[in-house]
């Protein structure tokens, strides 16, 4: 086993001793008749001889001081009644703020992202004894009264302030007291009296957590809204509220790309491979820290913007697990998320060298439009139409004409293909399915 030590019991003790460090006792009056109060020190009782000699300055002439509180562990017992599934693990997603090294400040922006896996801790009962050393009964009563009133029945104890430590909140309970070790009748020495209090702390001992860089395209939506009653009514009516403040943040995985094609979403490496070291990339493995795909609910969102992480106008697809291929998910594209068509719908994509009106295509009719993938100029059926691949041709009632000249267009255009009910996009001189393609890190995200 590798070494690890997180000072857990030490921290429990420190926090416990903190409870007893603030008490004072009244020590009579000074020369002016004013009350004298002395703070009572507390320290660990089971001390080392060398440290004890140093405390006394290596001299038996040095006096010990009272009142004084000593704390020490008497028992550490397994607590089987509090034991849970010993192999249980739990994951938490963590988003750090971005750190600006120049200013030394954390910015209100997403920074590093991690997944913290926590393993089930082991329950124990930590019994601690508190010895209260006093030199007279009144002093002892002063201290006892201040302490006893606190435990009704318990006090809250946190052993650290890390929000991800699932066992940080504990409590301390007083379970017994021993009034005095100097019983009546007095022994040979009546200088000091010791009263003991025994406390119980149900604690947990944690194994180390596993912190991994978050590897999921995972979207955290944090919407802050401020509105009046009318806007609240709008919200209840599920209508859009204008002028409300919203903040959207997303996190992306820098190591994984996806291919969206043929209604399937394939998980890839950055260099577009489906394997790593011969092992197939699996969606369920990729998602295991975050849950799993919820069929018909989880979404893929892809981005065709110029810059990664710019999520305006993204395309949305609803995901379903693939029945046979764990490297793929089935995608049902939400057409409402697609951009508006900029061109009149076409009746299909055709190869004019193989099909023509009345010969594989319906008879020519006014308004018929096709995208051509080759030049029909030499084909008699098209009556001498001169067009180039990627052009849109249209029948105007007497002849086929070019409606969209691809060679002369540089802008992105969108058109609906009536034959397949799919939207096409004209980009970089060619028509492609508007939402299909390969999306590198930063250009896609999942909502699981």
């Amino acid at each position, binding site marked *: 086993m590798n070494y690890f030590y997180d000072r857990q019991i030490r921290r429990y003790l420190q926090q416990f001793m903190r409870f007893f460090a603030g008490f004072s006792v009244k020590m009579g009056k000074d020369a002016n008749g004013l009350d004298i109060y002395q703070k009572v020190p507390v320290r660990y009782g089971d*001390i080392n001889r060398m440290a004890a000699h140093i405390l006394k300055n290596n001299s038996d002439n040095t006096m010990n001081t009272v009142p004084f509180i000593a704390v020490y562990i008497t028992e550490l017992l397994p607590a089987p009644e509090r034991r849970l599934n010993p192999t249980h693990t739990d994951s938490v997603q963590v988003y750090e703020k971005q750190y600006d090294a120049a200013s030394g400040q954390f910015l209100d922006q997403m920074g590093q992202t991690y997944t913290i896996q926590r393993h089930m801790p082991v329950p124990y009962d930590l019994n601690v004894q508190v010895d209260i050393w006093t030199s007279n009964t009144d002093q002892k009563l002063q201290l006892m009264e201040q302490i006893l009133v606190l435990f009704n029945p318990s006090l809250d104890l946190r052993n650290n302030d890390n929000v991800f430590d699932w066992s940080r909140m504990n*409590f301390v309970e007083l379970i017994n007291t021993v009034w005095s070790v100097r019983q009546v009748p007095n022994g040979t020495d009546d200088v000091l009296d010791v009263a003991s209090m025994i406390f119980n702390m149900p604690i947990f001992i944690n194994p180390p957590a596993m912190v991994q860089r978050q590897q999921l395209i995972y979207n955290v939506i944090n919407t802050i809204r401020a509105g009046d009653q009318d806007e609240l009514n709008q919200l209840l009516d599920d209508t859009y509220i204008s002028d409300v403040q919203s903040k959207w943040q997303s996190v992306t995985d820098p190591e994984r790309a996806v291919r969206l094609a043929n209604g399937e979403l394939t998980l890839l490496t950055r260099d577009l491979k489906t394997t790593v070291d011969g092992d197939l990339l699996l969606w369920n493995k990729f998602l295991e820290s975050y849950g799993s795909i919820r069929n018909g609910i989880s979404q893929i969102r892809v981005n065709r913007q110029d810059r990664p992480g710019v999520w305006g106008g993204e395309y949305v697809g609803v995901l379903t697990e693939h029945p046979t291929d764990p490297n793929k998910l089935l995608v049902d594209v939400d057409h409402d998320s697609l951009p508006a068509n900029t061109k009149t719908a076409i009746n299909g994509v055709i190869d004019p060298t193989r099909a023509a009106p009345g010969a594989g295509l319906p008879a020519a009719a006014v308004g018929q439009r096709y995208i051509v993938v080759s030049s029909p100029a030499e084909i008699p059926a098209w009556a001498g139409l001169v067009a180039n691949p990627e052009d849109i041709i249209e029948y105007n009632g007497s002849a086929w004409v070019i409606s969209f000249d691809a060679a002369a267009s540089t802008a992105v255009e969108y058109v609906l293909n009536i034959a397949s009910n799919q939207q096409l996009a004209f980009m970089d001189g060619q028509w492609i399915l508007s939402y299909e393609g390969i999306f590198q890190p930063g250009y896609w995200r999942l909502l699981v």
Partner: protein
Amino acid sequence: MPRLSLWRKDKTNDYKFIDRNIKEQFMIGGTSILIHKYIGPDPQGETGDPTQPNYQADDVFNETKIQDLLFLENRDRKYDKDIYDLRGVYNVGDNDFDLTQFGLFINTDVLFITFHLNDMIERLGRKIMAGDVFEVPHQRDDTLLDPNAPAINKWYVVQDASKAAEGYSQTWWPHLWRVKAAPLTDAQEYKDILGQATDPDSLKNQISTYVKEKEISDAIVAAAEQEVPDLFPDVSTLFNYETPPDPNGPTDAAGFEEYYGVPIASGVIFPGNPQQGEMFIRTDFLPNRLFVYRGGRWARLYDNVFPSRTDVVSRSVNAGGFINNDTQGVNLDGQAYPTRQPISGVVKPRTDF
């Protein structure tokens, strides 16, 4: 002719002759013992408690008085500012340290010192009694671990005193006073000699472990505060986490969730089949109360107390707001009074005269 007898009912010249020789023996062979003479309980003023009389008011103030007639103890002691130098004799023995939670002890470090009775009474005015404090100069330690620390004497307090068996002469009259003395502790009883912790030059701060113990105690608290600086976890470097809530924030269960970082179930009755460690907010408690299920019960963690909820004591301690209360009230006569008062003493009838 009377029969020979050394016994006389009066202290005759035989007694005086022997006594002078014994005294001389102590002067020659004894060691110096510096006596801090107890002179009575330190007046604490009027307490209103008959078991703690105000001897100062009666102008009767001496060693015969007991400060607390219930516990029968003199915890505030007055010592003569003059220090009396007597000669005493005792056997020096070897001691072993005993390590306890309290620190190092020498359990066997109890001296049985004998003094010359008449010399003691002549100088001190009375016999040495329990509560008198000794300094033993010949045990002065001038080689402490800290080379800059001043040399310190060895201090003892008298626990018992009685006539010494070996102190009876042929006349059957006693000449010696045997004292049992234990090492002195830095305690309330001796503050008239040792001084107070607030005085950096006090004897207490030089010869007692109080200063070091206080430093240790403060270091433990500092370490604990470093781990848990305040009531709320530090999420200031995390994105999308609530920062410590506004002290004037909500008083409902949401306050706990802000604190914990994740939602916590809430309601007016506990879940039927809770898991170990499950948390639950009882919203029928005002303020709302956070419980955790441990073992076979729902254990209270703390209350959602506003606006002072950053105060651990106010949230965790049932009566925190009652104990940490420094506020003053003003009555109809315009007189200020502390609103925190012992329950046994609140609004009692006033005396007519």
